[in-house]
């Protein structure tokens, strides 16, 4: 069946948009919060991401063919659903703005330190604009095609870096660190919660969603956890915790010391490229979610004409939100992570609770 978006594409997109945050923010946050034992936090994150995936699957299975807003409308009523979607709209707006800032800061830190952020942002806006005109299928296909190559690249990178890992940077750890690693896992959870994008596109999957298709989400979650764990181990094992905690892009520095049998070096350029591609996909997908939220909140039939004014608001908001690396770190650590936890976990949990209460009524409907 020719569907606009499939669960496989959602899974690929979930992994692809998570990559930039896994590479850039996660090792730094885990190192500063949990120290040497921080690489165990991705393991603990499973305790939150598995129930979330189960909730997403439950909602998709309970309301086949309905999107996030329609599901909410069924569960909590139209007025409350609109209010919640309006809050989601603000959260997505903040997430896009932060992503644009992170992208321009990455470019300045890695490849072009003398170039102004206006330039990077203008280019990104043009690219996103072009991708949006082409349609969501193009964006999903892009991530589907690119993710495989990216994962192979990481596999090669990790094989080359295996000998450079220092055990004394990772061990010893003891039960004293248990609490800090559990607390730090919120930084992994806040990235892993991106899986809720499946709910926003749930109406595109069609009425019949098979178990095999839903299994793709579990595969995505498993890959995410493994990737987060491996990248943290390599960042900590090669650069050490103190350096990782104090760098804006620790994985970039880690990769600098890796070479492929002394033949090929400077993998860091590829890491930057992967980050940029991931940021591009994230901004595209969040822009689509933003437009969907605008459509739901204001009952619009079409919203293409709002692309330019919204792009302008996002562009200038990046300056008002955070402009330096220090400000961005603060924003990410104290605001974005906590907001992610609310909108990615608490709201779906409440919806799942309502779904559980109304399960008999739902069974009669379908």
């Amino acid at each position, binding site marked *: 069946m020719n569907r606009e978006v499939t669960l496989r594409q959602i899974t690929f997109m979930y992994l692809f948009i998570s990559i930039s945050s896994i590479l850039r923010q996660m090792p730094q946050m885990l190192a500063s919060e949990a120290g040497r034992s921080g690489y165990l936090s991705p393991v603990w994150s499973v305790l939150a991401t598995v129930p979330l995936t189960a909730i997403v699957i439950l909602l998709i299975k309970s309301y086949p063919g309905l999107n996030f807003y329609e599901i909410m409308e069924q569960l909590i009523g139209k007025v409350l659903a609109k209010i919640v979607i309006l809050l989601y709209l603000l959260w997505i707006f903040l997430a896009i703005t932060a992503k644009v800032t992170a992208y321009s800061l990455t470019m300045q830190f890695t490849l072009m330190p003398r170039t102004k952020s206006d330039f990077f942002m203008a280019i990104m806006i043009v690219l996103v604009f072009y991708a949006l005109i082409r349609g969501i299928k193009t964006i999903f296909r892009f991530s589907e095609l690119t993710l495989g190559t990216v994962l192979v690249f990481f596999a090669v990178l990790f094989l080359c870096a295996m000998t450079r890992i220092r055990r004394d940077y990772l061990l010893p750890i003891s039960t004293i660190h248990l609490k800090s690693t559990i607390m730090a896992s919120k930084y992994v959870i806040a990235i892993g919660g991106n899986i809720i994008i499946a709910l926003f596109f749930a109406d595109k999957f069609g009425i019949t969603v098979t178990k095999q298709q839903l299994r793709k989400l579990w595969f995505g979650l498993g890959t995410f956890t493994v990737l987060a764990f491996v990248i943290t181990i390599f960042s900590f094992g090669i650069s050490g915790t103190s350096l990782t905690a104090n760098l804006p892009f620790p994985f970039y520095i880690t990769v600098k010391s890796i070479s492929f049998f002394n033949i090929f070096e400077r993998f860091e350029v590829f890491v930057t490229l992967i980050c940029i591609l991931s940021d591009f996909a994230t901004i595209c997908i969040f822009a689509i979610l933003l437009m969907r939220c605008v459509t739901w909140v*204001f*009952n*619009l039939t079409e919203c293409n004409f709002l692309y*330019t*004014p919204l792009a302008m*608001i996002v*562009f*200038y908001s990046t*300056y008002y939100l955070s402009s330096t690396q220090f400000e961005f770190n603060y*924003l990410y650590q104290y605001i974005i992570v906590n907001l992610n936890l609310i909108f990615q976990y608490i709201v779906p949990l409440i919806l799942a609770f309502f779904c559980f209460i109304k399960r008999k009524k739902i069974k009669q409907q379908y």
Partner: protein
Amino acid sequence: MIYIFSFTIIYTFIRQREKILSKKRNFALYILFSVGGLALGIVYLLNPYLPSLTTALEKYMK
């Protein structure tokens, strides 16, 4: 950038005027977001060194 954005806003209005003017809601939203964006742009143009929201939050939360 503000000149480019202003031009694009006018261009979008001319290209998609049928859609924008077909409903009062569409027109109101278009004006609201355009004015909002332009206001942000003008404020940035007048004072590019305004303290960011994060700085204000950092001070407030300490």
